[in-house]
């Protein structure tokens, strides 16, 4: 096993790489999906492969494959160096990397109940229970899914590192569609994390499924949300989306190096109200985006991005820490063995405040309260963002009012953060996948407290 990695590293050095590494992955997953109380898919996935990369005079060459023999990886290493040299000749500015890992460590993620020790029948039964619990009138379509993944990594580099680690994740979800006449509304809920089967075991599956169905039914009565700039109380999921999309992407070191971020040159400056504190923390216990090491072998790190309204720091890979002469923060991540490394977030969230959620509602004369997120999109250049919520509620005279349909939040990031005037003590993180632009998805989490701010709202 070590011979495979060592051969690749030697080939990188011999071919002229200034720095290089090889990462081998073994990814196993078990997936169950059900619809209308019928199993749709039971899928066992196994993906094994490796990627070699070479750094030459400021440029990177990547080569990857699935053939598990030394000859293949040695040839790939030479190919990676040749690609890097070709790119370097095209005018890439020379630069040095910083903080290359050199440790020799093994990290085995421990979970209370190993998903692989739980039978397929038990997993299928859990999915069916979530699906069956959604069957209430007028739900027309019930859906549930479960997945667990067990990923093993080995990494070696030209600085002497030899790392082995394991990441285990689990996820269970329900989605109900309620229909009345021509109208159809959906509700979706999930639980996930870098944990084991204990997550499912600790869940009241029937209640979980029923709450999704009730949510979809309630959506049938939801009103169109109001439009325009208004007071919004974001729930932890949408607060997390703001953290992730608004400030997180713009804090990725590669965007700073390219001056593609509106946060370039703001370290030490005020970017939000004093109530705003934000972290990216790859060490957050049990969160979906937690990792022992990033794809470059740098240990995960907790970065204080914003401290009481003042911008503190960026997220870095080996390359961006070299370009900006600082330390890597464990944010060099890759989708899989065949994909390049980018600077990526891990678990990104706003820190808690002092109020209770109910106190924030009571103090709000008029506005909307968001309920769960669907998606978001960043705008690191312009400082704008888009966040789509599943639904929400009107707030009238300090009380939660009628349900409103899904809405989209947008506006200027810094204006929004500066408008934050109340932050709750409750804190929650949701898992998900994050792409760089439109691809290169990695597991992440985002979250935060309930936050009151001014945002542009619109809904269809």
């Amino acid at each position: 096993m070590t011979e495979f990695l060592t051969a690749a590293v030697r080939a990188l050095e011999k071919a002229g790489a200034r720095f290089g590494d090889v990462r081998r992955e073994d990814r196993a997953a078990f997936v169950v999906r059900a619809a209308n109380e019928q199993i749709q898919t039971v899928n066992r996935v196994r993906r094994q492969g490796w990627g070699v990369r070479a750094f030459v005079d400021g440029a990177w060459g990547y080569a990857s494959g699935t053939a598990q023999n030394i000859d293949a990886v040695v040839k790939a290493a030479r190919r990676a160096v040749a690609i890097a040299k070709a790119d370097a000749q095209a005018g890439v500015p020379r630069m040095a990397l910083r903080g290359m890992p050199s440790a020799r460590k093994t990290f085995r993620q421990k979970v209370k109940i190993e998903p692989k020790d739980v039978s397929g029948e038990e997993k299928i039964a859990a999915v069916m229970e979530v699906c069956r619990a959604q069957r209430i009138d007028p739900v027309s379509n019930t859906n549930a899914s479960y997945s667990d993944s067990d990923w093993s990594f080995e990494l070696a580099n030209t600085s002497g590192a030899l790392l082995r680690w394991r990441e285990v994740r689990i996820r269970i979800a329900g989605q109900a569609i309620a229909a009345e006449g021509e109208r159809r509304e959906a509700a979706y809920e999930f639980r996930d994390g870098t944990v084991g089967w204990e997550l499912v075991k600790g869940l009241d599956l029937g209640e979980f499924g029923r709450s999704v169905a009730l949510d979809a039914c309630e959506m049938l009565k939801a009103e169109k949300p109001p439009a325009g700039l208004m007071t919004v109380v974001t729930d932890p999921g949408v607060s997390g989306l703001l953290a992730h999309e608004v400030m997180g992407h713009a804090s990725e070191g590669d965007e700073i190096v390219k001056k593609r971020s509106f946060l370039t040159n703001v370290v030490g400056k005020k970017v939000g109200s004093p109530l705003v504190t934000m972290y990216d923390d790859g060490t957050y216990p049990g969160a979906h985006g937690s990792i022992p090491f990033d794809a470059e072998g740098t240990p995960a790190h907790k970065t204080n991005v914003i401290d009481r309204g003042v911008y503190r720091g960026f997220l870095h890979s080996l390359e961006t820490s070299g370009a900006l002469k600082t330390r890597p923060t464990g944010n060099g991540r890759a989708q899989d063995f065949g994909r390049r490394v980018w600077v990526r977030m891990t678990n990104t969230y706003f820190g808690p405040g002092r109020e209770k959620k109910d106190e924030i509602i009571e103090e709000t004369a008029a506005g909307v309260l968001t309920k769960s997120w669907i998606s978001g999109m960043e705008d690191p250049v312009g400082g704008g963002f888009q966040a789509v919520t599943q639904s929400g509620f009107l707030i009238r005279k300090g009380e939660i009012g009628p349900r409103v349909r899904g809405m989209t939040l947008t506006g200027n990031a810094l204006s929004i953060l500066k408008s934050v005037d109340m932050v709750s003590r409750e804190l929650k993180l949701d898992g998900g996948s994050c792409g760089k632009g439109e691809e290169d998805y990695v597991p992440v989490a985002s979250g935060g407290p309930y936050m009151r701010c001014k945002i542009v709202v619109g809904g269809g």
Partner: protein
Amino acid sequence: MDLLDLASDAVRRARAAGADAAEAFAIAFTTRSVYIEDDVPKVGEDRQEAGLGVRVARGKRVAFASTTLASSEDARSGVAAAIDSLKQVPEDPDFSGFPTEAAKGEVAGVWDSRTASTDVPGLLEAATSFTDAATDLKGTSVPKAIFRIQDYAIRVANSNDVVANHRGTLVFCYLTAKCGSKGKFGEGIMKAMDTSVHAIDFPELGRTTSRRAAENLKARAFKETLSGTAVLYPLDLGEMFIQTVGSAVNGENVHKKRSAWIDKVGKEIASAGVTIRDRPRMPKGLASCVVDDEGNATRDRTLVEAGILKTYVSDGHHAPLLGTTPGNGFRRAVATVEGSYTRPAETHVSNLVVEPGRKSLDALLAEVDHGVYVEKFAAPEVNEFSGSFAMEVRNATLIEKGELADHVKFALLTGNLYEGLKNVVGIGKDPLATHGFLSTPGCAYVPAMAFEGFELVGQT
């Protein structure tokens, strides 16, 4: 050894292991990518991967497993995993077996030999021609651009002696340009997809992307509410069509009562000028093929004719349930074929084509008295069940008496696309190809279209 031969080998092994019926999907592909960062080629990639997805049936029990494919041992383990799952899965009363006859041949222009033989340095030339044109506009840079070529071959084999082959080339480009200074920047984003790298006009893409960046920089924050005509550029509109029309005509969604167009065959669902087809046999189509990923023969179908819904599309599982013919069981996406072997085939549109009109984009815009022209949203996202949307505009220009006026940003275009289809007031003549979510099969060829009934909401 040709790895694709392992598809038939897997079917034999599955039968020998006790499966009544079996199907194997094998894919081998190479990926070559160039990433431009800050005007220079920073990263080059060369990826090789092969994979196998095996579906086995015993009676009415059906299970699936997948694995990367490097040797016959992988095929053996993939089959063993699928057979093992058979013991766990409940019966699927709707399972009706695998195809018994496969179509032969190729759709013209789906595989391009020159594209297949383009290496990383060759792709670098295309990247350079884009970058040179984009940076030709003073003060403009290319912070990030992705150029990717895939050359893939597929084989589907099953226990009914069906052996079907397909091969193709795919080109995917994600392009950005940035301009501005002193903390104020504008960004333009474009995408391009084709089956041939030589069919793409990279200098023209460079000019368009840099123009969008300049217009985004000049754009003012929109602070009003506008009701009028909305003209939407093909690319993001195509994604909106995949999310809504692609979902509504999906036979699996119809069967599960998720579709917005249940029981609408023969009814008016769009303006009389709207005709939409699913065209898997379209020459040079990104999703074109004579057989789908289950081995069933594909066929072109008219889905909506002059505003009237005609039919749905289905995979092999749902076609008998709906009384239609199969041919739309897909697992490979058109932006990348990565991961296609890790999931069983499901119902998807192939090339979703909106019949072009006769008007140029300029003619469409000239007819608008009061409205907005949206070239780019933050992320085109429409609720597939209700059709509602509220999307942040990134490149939008007001239209007054047929003339383009102010560029605007920080605003949401809101509306309902299913309602919008009934209020189409203009269809352009030049469709562009686009895809949906990265790993979702199917694509759209949609021209620019003009709609009544949408609203642009700013920071009122």
